[in-house]
Each structure stands twice: as structure tokens, then as C-alpha cells.
């Protein structure tokens, strides 16, 4: 993250530096907007990752569906990796549970109770 980017605890403030870091991973995820590419990805995830020159760490995070690592180590943006989640039929609420250490049901319940409060 750039020194110019505001620091907000508990939030990723996505910026140019992160975008450069996550470039190949984001580009791979962006390609999954095409149905053909989704099929190719599902047929051979490793080959698909390699074709986008992911780092070993990025590739492992994708194969493990380690959403936190994709973001924190891989530099991915949530709007790109949600396309990978879509392939697994995972929703943004499933990911919300993972980011916050809850089950999906717990996360959904917190939202229905008015959402999570901070500060």
C-alpha cells in the first residue's frame, strides 16, 4: 500500500501499489467473466493459473481457496476474487463469514440483526 493511501483498521484500502502486486491474479480472475474460460479453469486449475504467471503463493492461495491469502499476500481485489467464488457457488456472505471467522449463518444473522458496528 502506498504511504499516501489512508489507513483504516480492519479494511483493505485498495490502491495502485496493491493493484500492481495483484495484477496477474486479478487478470486471471477477470478472465473468468467468460463462460468458456470458466470451463477451462475448472478443467485444469493448475494449468490455468500457470498460464497467467501467478506466483507460487498466488497459485497456492487459489488452489486452496484461501481468500484471505489471495488478498493479503496476493494483492487481489475482492471484486476480482468474487468471480472465483462464483465458480464454487460461494456468495459474498460466505466470504464475509470467512473474513470475520464466522460461519455463513452467523455472518448472515449479524447482518439481519442490523449489521456489525465499529468505532
Amino acid at each position, binding site marked *: 500500500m502506498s504511504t499516501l493511501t489512508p489507513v483504516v483498521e480492519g479494511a483493505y484500502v485498495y490502491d495502485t501499489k496493491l493493484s500492481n502486486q495483484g495484477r496477474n491474479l486479478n487478470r486471471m480472475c477477470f478472465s473468468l467473466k467468460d463462460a468458456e474460460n470458466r470451463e477451462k479453469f475448472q478443467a485444469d486449475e493448475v494449468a490455468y493459473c500457470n498460464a497467467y504467471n501467478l506466483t507460487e503463493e498466488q497459485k497456492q492461495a487459489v488452489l486452496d481457496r484461501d481468500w484471505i491469502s489471495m488478498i493479503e499476500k496476493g494483492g487481489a481485489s475482492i471484486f476480482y476474487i468474487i468471480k472465483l467464488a462464483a465458480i464454487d457457488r460461494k456468495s459474498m456472505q460466505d466470504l464475509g463469514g470467512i473474513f470475520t471467522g464466522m460461519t455463513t449463518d452467523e455472518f448472515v444473522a449479524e447482518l439481519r440483526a442490523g449489521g*456489525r458496528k465499529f468505532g
Partner: protein
Amino acid sequence: MAEIIWGLATSHVPSIGAAMDHNKTEDEYWKPLFDGYGPARAWMAEHKPDVAIVVYNDHANALGLEMIPTFSIGTAERYNVADEGYGPRSVPNIEGDLDLSEHLLVNLVDEGFDMTALQELDVDHGCTVPLSVYTPDPGDAWPCRVVPMLVNVLQYPQPTAARCLALGEALGRAIRSYPKDIKVAVFGTGGMSHQLSGERAGLINEEFDRNFLEKIETDPQSLAAISRGEYIEQAGSEGIEMIMWLIMRGALGDDITRIHDTYHVPASNTAAALALFATEAVNAKNNELAAV
């Protein structure tokens, strides 16, 4: 000359579109939100625009990461519905208005707004969900042409809230200087508070939202003075989308009337709201009719 008849602020959460597409609007989870839309939808159905300017952000569905424009405007004859990973929503593709696009582009650039022209654009939920909020059952075609206007809200530095309000004011002037007699509606979309990733995922800040929902009518300058960092801190990493409402608000002018609003938590991970404002142009016409 063209006139702006109303402005609609609305969340554009994808699941709102999905609820409509899969007939879930009467489900216990969704009914309160859609009930809240009722009065606004009824009023808008009585006041149909020829063209809607939909201010929204793409969510990595059409614009890649290679080029991140601060402000862009569609200059195509039509815009197809994007495939966001599940196949495209089964709503109509969008008919553009190339003449109006070009008029807006030239006038905004003349006023010193450094627009990006988009000759090709697939529109994602940011654009189609607000259209569904306006027109739940479009049939084969949306009831108006659409000019999409896109804002970078995903990657720092986003435009400042103040710059968004200024763009809206220039957009209003540009629309009102368009020589054809058309009625225009302006949509400001996104928000309200939400954060999708990180430890604060699931954040909702009703106090911030309620203040925004009031001040967007009465004191947009106070919202324009809020920094990007504070939007993210208060309303979440993605709650900053609300700055797009200020573009709509700037276009409407000073003399507006609130027709309806609604606020509901949650729409999946998000606080959802709608606020509908009639402009002076419509109020004057309604007064004329009343006087007859």
C-alpha cells in the same frame, strides 16, 4: 430544450437484482425492501423520462485493471448486459443515446472535466439493478434510453466527494443545454454503508447512512466536505460508493422536492436505500396542472 425531471438515489446491490430475477421479492427476507420501493415506483411510472443517465461503478466486469478512469461516459449505441460469473442477468440490453452522450462529453470536457469516452461497455449490476428498481418488469426493452456514467470507486484515489458534486453540477448544465425536447432522469447509485472484505466485513453504520440520506437533499455541501478516508472509515471500503449520489444531486439543482425514501438493513452484506427527488421542472408542471 432538455429538462431533468427527477433524480433517483438507490443502492445497486447485485442480490436485489437476483431477488427480482428469481421471484423472491415477496419472501420474508426481501419483502420489506421492495415494499419500501412501492411509492417511488408508482410516482416514477407516472413521470417517465426519455433518457436515464445512470451514474454507477463497474465492479471488474467490463473495465479491467489496465486502465482505471476516474470518470467515464458511455458513447456507444448500445450496451449489453455483462456476464458477472453466473451468465448475464435476464434483463434487456440497453439502448444508448449517442447524440446525448456526445453532447455531454463535449460540454463536460469544455468545463474542464477530464472524461474518458467508452465506445464499448458491458453494463453490470451497478447499472442494471437501478434500472430494475425503476422498472421491475421491463419486458423486452427498458422504457428509456440510457447513458451510463462511470466513476472509479474501487481503487484509491477515488475522486473526492467535492469533485463528484461539481461534476454533477456541470452535468446538470450540460443536460439543460441539450437542444432536443427530452425528459431526463438522473440515477445516483451505490451504497449505503457496507464493507465486503477484511475484519470489518459486515459493517453497517446506520447513523452515517441516515444523516447522508437527509443531507443529500438539504445540505449536499456537507457531504461533499467529507474526505475519502472518512467515507471508508465510517461507511466501509465499499460504502464510499455513496459519493456517486452527489453527482446525481449536483445535476438536479437547488429547488428539489423529496417524493419518497426508504432505508433497509440488510440486502445481503449491505445497507440499502432509495431516495427519489422531483426537480423544479416537474414541480412547476404539477403546479400548472393543479391551477387549471
